């Protein structure tokens, strides 16, 4: 479709976009501003974690100290909480994948009755305020005995991950040419074999992206876990949450760094999957 280009007057307000030098300069400024916006807040946290003494109006700590790191790392609650957070997240992701991938495939390929309504229903976890769900859920948990249990927390985390998994995998499967699957079936493969050999590998980028979002959503989850996980299951964000209300800034800062580090490592590893092409494939060329 050809755009209708209007007649060009001599000077326009947006002339500078076409000037390569100005554009380059503006882009540099923008990139720098964004770097500051994204990076510096995180940097101040790192500074606070090493702050022996830091009073206003100093711009950096007047005394540096490893004392807070020592205090935190020696605290068994911290290591327990970190372990819990980073072991629950894979379990949640795996369980969600096991449940949502078949659903995604079904929505994409098969004739599911009330398909549109169901897809809309699958969006409800995101539409209803999560915190309201958690409170109702806690009451339910007390009744069926899931309060303060490992699986109670896993099931609760799945609320946040289910939407990503289902929608992204539906879109992923939809974007895969159905002919490929049919060809495999015609060649004699059973539906299951066709799925695993042909469809799944092609869907991998989308599934990985969905898994990544799910994993991060589980690591991030604080509110619900606070309600249903205490007192025995304290994850890192819950611990951090209660710590932010404590007035030792450096301790909360140390925690934050500790919680962010594994995620950032994941970032480096996941870099290649987060290229737009993968995500586009994953989101089914949204």
């Amino acid at each position: 479709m050809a755009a209708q280009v209007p007649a060009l007057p001599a000077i326009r307000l947006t002339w500078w976009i076409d000037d390569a030098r100005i554009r380059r300069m503006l882009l540099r400024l923008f990139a720098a501003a964004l770097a500051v916006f994204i990076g510096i807040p995180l940097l101040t946290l790192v500074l606070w974690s090493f702050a022996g003494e830091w009073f206003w109006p100093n711009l950096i700590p007047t005394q540096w100290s490893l004392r807070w790191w020592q205090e935190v790392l020696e605290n068994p609650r911290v290591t327990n909480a970190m372990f819990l957070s980073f072991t629950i997240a894979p379990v949640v992701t795996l369980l969600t994948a096991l449940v949502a991938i078949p659903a995604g495939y079904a929505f994409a390929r098969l004739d599911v009755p009330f398909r549109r309504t169901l897809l809309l229903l699958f969006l409800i976890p995101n539409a209803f305020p999560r915190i309201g769900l958690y409170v109702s859920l806690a009451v339910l948990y007390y009744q069926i005995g899931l309060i303060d249990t490992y699986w109670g927390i896993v099931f609760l985390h799945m609320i946040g991950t289910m939407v990503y998994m289902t929608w992204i995998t539906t879109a992923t499967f939809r974007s895969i040419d159905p002919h490929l699957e049919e060809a495999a079936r015609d060649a004699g493969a059973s539906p299951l074999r066709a799925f695993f050999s042909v469809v799944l590998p092609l869907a991998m980028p989308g599934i990985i992206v969905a898994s990544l979002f799910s994993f991060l959503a589980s690591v991030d989850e604080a509110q619900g876990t606070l309600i249903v996980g205490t007192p025995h299951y304290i994850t890192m964000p819950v611990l951090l949450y209660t710590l932010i209300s404590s007035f030792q800034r450096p301790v909360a800062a140390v925690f934050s760094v500790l919680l962010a580090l594994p995620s950032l490592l994941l970032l480096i590893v996941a870099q290649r999957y987060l290229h737009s092409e993968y995500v586009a494939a994953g989101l089914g060329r949204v």
Partner: protein
Amino acid sequence: MAVVTSARAVGRPRRRDRSRVAGVLLVLPSLLYLTVFVFIPVIKAFATSFTVRDRDDAGNYTYRVGLDNYNQLIASDTLRSNVIFTVFIAVASVAIVFVIAYVIALALRFGRGPSARFLGRIYIVPLFIPSVIASYAMITFLANHGFVDGILQAIGLPDGAFPKIVFDWKGIVITQVWLSLPFMTVLLSSVLLEISDSLIESARDVGASSWQIFRHIVLPLSAPGALIGVTFIFLGVIGGFTVPYLLGPNAPQMLGVSMVYYMTNYFEPYIASTQAVAIFLLSLVAAVYYVRQQFKREIR
């Protein structure tokens, strides 16, 4: 559809039935899960919102069914301003993150140079930072007598002149923008990828300026996909708790925060449920739009 050459062609109607059954079976586990853990609590919340609790002078409670809770949501100054505040924040956050993410997405799509590559690496970082940490970082960064205030005062800003950002709506919006940036950018990037280079080039050949290409080609073509990202982020912000709790003012409060206060501190679970339903209804508009957009693309 594919030309079917095998004997399977004969069984086509049966295959379709099997497809239905298989479809139901595959969806069932997730549906079951959602029913127990989401739909039932949601229905309970709806039911609770229609329960009105009256209190007499001696503190005794009586219960009845009614719309009073909803009346209170509209009539009470506090609650009404909470509703307006919530919508305002959601709209502001989404609008701002849209603009910034779009610039990044454009740079990634059309930019060459080191700046564009740098942007490509950095925009994704907030995705890996849990919202609690991000909130905390923003507090130390933007508070009065915080980092930015310190730098500005070092170069001459008088004490007390720094605007109130933390514990103010601005703090919530800025932090939500920070957190939503990766998702929005990723979405917009993938949308822009669909616009073929040849289309852009033919427009250039006709003599269009970059702005005209953007305004008349890129923007319209990206709109449906972009709006999907917008609604997704909108849903997240409008029902949020952590960020507004840590960064928001004492009053007004976003509905997510207010809901928790009513539930746990004021012991008004019925008003709390009503607020939850209000958020849900506000989100529903966006949610329905999101789904319809998805289906529109399916027809293609």
